[in-house]
């Protein structure tokens, strides 16, 4: 019994973190191809609109588009048309009537729109907040559009970051735009603050985007798609193992019977 417990501890008692979602209903883009664009009328004090647009490619290709178990493909869309109030409006979730009532708001968008913004209420009046992201357009539980605002109030920290760090910040905010929340793991891109070196996604990021945007391969047309279920994986596993054992046992018996017949 002690050996079994020890074996169980070795196998299972390993630490693990977990990704989170930024809402309680698992919202995600319905389309698997999502455009990421810089607002055509965005003016930034720290980077030119062209520099900002040039960061989209690395932010999606070095991070989110690399995940083989995710069906989401982000597309560098360059510049969008002008977005009203992008530079100084308030960014509100569509259901937050208190926020919407505060003043001029940024309208619902399609896809992911990036812009620089000087309205302090978006950043808790802090120059230390690098950026904020709010999905501000839903259809049912599906995200239709999200806005990423780079903090452009005087003294902001974003302007002091290196280009690679700025790309990481944009990639992090894209993570929020596609439905992910923060992770406790500092190896994850969705960790709440920037880290010294950001090369790739962490395991939590990969798990999160794979959860929200699973690949549904149809195996050369042999099978249909996987449906979301509430069936605990334990029963799926036990069922599959039992089937495997049953299969093996059937074959053994079949072989015995055939041998008997040939004797």
């Amino acid at each position: 019994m002690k050996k079994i417990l020890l074996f169980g501890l070795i196998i299972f008692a390993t630490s693990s973190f977990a990704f989170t979602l930024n809402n309680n209903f698992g919202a995600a883009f319905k389309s698997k191809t999502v455009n990421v664009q810089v607002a055509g009328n965005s003016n930034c004090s720290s980077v030119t609109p062209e520099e900002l647009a040039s960061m989209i490619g690395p932010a999606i290709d070095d991070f989110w588009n690399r995940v083989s178990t995710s069906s989401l493909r982000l597309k560098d869309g360059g510049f969008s048309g002008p977005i009203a109030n992008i530079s100084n409006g308030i960014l509100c979730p569509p259901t937050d009537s208190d926020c919407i009532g505060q003043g001029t708001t940024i309208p619902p968008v399609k896809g992911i729109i990036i812009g620089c913004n000087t309205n302090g209420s978006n950043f808790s009046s802090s120059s230390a907040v690098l950026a904020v992201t709010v999905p501000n357009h839903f259809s049912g539980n599906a995200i239709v559009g999200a806005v990423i605002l780079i903090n452009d109030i005087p003294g902001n920290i974003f302007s002091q970051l290196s280009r690679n760090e700025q790309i990481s910040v944009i990639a992090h905010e894209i993570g929020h735009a596609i439905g992910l929340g923060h992770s406790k793991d500092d190896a994850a891109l969705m960790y709440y603050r920037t880290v010294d070196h950001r090369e790739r996604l962490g395991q939590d990021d990969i798990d999160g985007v794979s959860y929200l945007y699973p690949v549904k391969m149809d195996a050369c047309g042999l099978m249909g798609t996987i449906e979301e279920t509430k069936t605990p994986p334990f029963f799926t596993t036990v069922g599959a193992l039992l089937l495997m054992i049953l299969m093996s046992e059937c074959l053994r018996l079949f072989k015995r019977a055939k041998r008997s017949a040939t004797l």
Partner: protein
Amino acid sequence: MKTLTFLTILLSFSCWGQIKGPDSIDGWQLHFGTHAQNFNDVQTNSSGQLNDTFEFNPTIGAGLNIPLTTNWKFLPEMSWVLPKLNEDSRIIKNIFFFRADFAYTLLDWLWLRAGTSFAILNQHGRGGKATLNNGNETSEFYYPDENHSSVNNTLDLGVELLYDKWSLRLQTYTYQVFKEESRQISYSLFLTRYWDL
């Protein structure tokens, strides 16, 4: 349902092997080992280190051994990468491989394998909330509360060294073979015990 369908296909292959003759099925096997997902493509700390070293993720599985010709074998298998759990775990992650490999007997003690797997990444969320840092304050974030599976078809290559009824195997899985931008490679190391039927 997909799992059951695939097992049915494996069973059909096995039965086909059986029908070929009374000695068509050599035996079955159990394997135990470790699995590395997305090798060298996952950041493991805040200094930019990638998962390019050995990692221990216990994996177990079983399979059949069906000779097709003198040198070729068909080896249907299932493997399960055990979930990592602790008391705070809000998401249970399982990885299953339902594999159809063909092995070529290069030498008595050396098999080369090639085949394909359905690699199923299954994540079961238990729900709940977490209060985490967010900028210069904290916010509530949400753990998933559904069961989602991502199913990939992988290209598998492997090499297996045999000694008596035991073997050591390196098995690789290439995800998204035809999409260069998201192609990733995972691998397993297995110790296998074979039994005759």
